[in-house]
């Protein structure tokens, strides 16, 4: 069971859990802003640019 869950985690998330957490936060942020009446379609595309840059910058600094 544990090995199966680890395999699923590795398959979807890989070695960068911060990016996965960032995607969850961006989705939650969009839902919160929308429910407060703020237009928020731009939040996830912006998060994608930031998360990808962060992930690659981490690789570059190694």
């Amino acid at each position: 069971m544990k090995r199966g869950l680890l395999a699923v985690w590795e398959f979807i998330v890989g070695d960068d859990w911060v990016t996965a957490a960032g995607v969850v936060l961006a989705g939650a942020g969009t839902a919160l802003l929308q429910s407060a009446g703020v237009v928020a379609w731009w939040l996830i595309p912006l998060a994608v640019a930031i998360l990808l840059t962060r992930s690659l910058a981490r690789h570059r600094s190694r």
Partner: protein
Amino acid sequence: MSGSEAALAVSVFLACTVEAVEALTIVLAVGSTRSWRSALYGVTAGVLALAAVIAALGPAVGSIPLGVLRVAVGGLLLVFGLQWLRKAVLRAAGLKALHDEQAIFARETQRARGAGGRRPGLGSIDAYAFTIACKGVLLEGLEVAFIVLTFGTNQHDVGLAATAAAAAVIIVVAAGVAVRAPLAQIPENTIKFIVGVLLSSFGTFWLADGAGAHWPGADASLLGLIAWTAACAIGLVAWLRPTPTAPLEQVR
């Protein structure tokens, strides 16, 4: 066919092409060095296992309400797509080895030869060829199944996604049978880059949609998203690519 359906078909077709090419290389390597019969049994077992996974997950995914499905699947697809895109950007920038089917074929062939004599399996089946072929098809196929299920259920068109996937697999297998060699001529690294952009764009679109956002221009905004994601990725490649050291600095 609408624009979003065409984008879905192209995305699934390209993703499945690269996965099928990778699985084909593994099967060719063990088939040509060990046993074609055992390798083909392995392929059959891998395909049957995949069919079982799809049969189990497909109806379960399809029964989830669309709003929840878009958030969950959009989020998963975005995380998965960003993983693809990160590797593709690193390859394009020269910071990660390019995917080379000839080199993988040579490595797999060497491993198959080094694995010793025929390993007894069920009856006259070579267990090594069977296992490696089955594993290759199953692991590469799982990515295909994930993409087909997520794209198909979100767009309410599993049939179109499955057709695009089947077309890719048939074309790759036919080409592999014709040339009897790994399909090294296919620009796999470029396709992986494009697929990374498409998976991330679709994931972004569905996650935001499921979270309650309204895209300006509705489905047409997907094209803008693809352009945005591609521009970010290309910009990051330029930023990461090592700059050649200036001659003056080399003298110093």
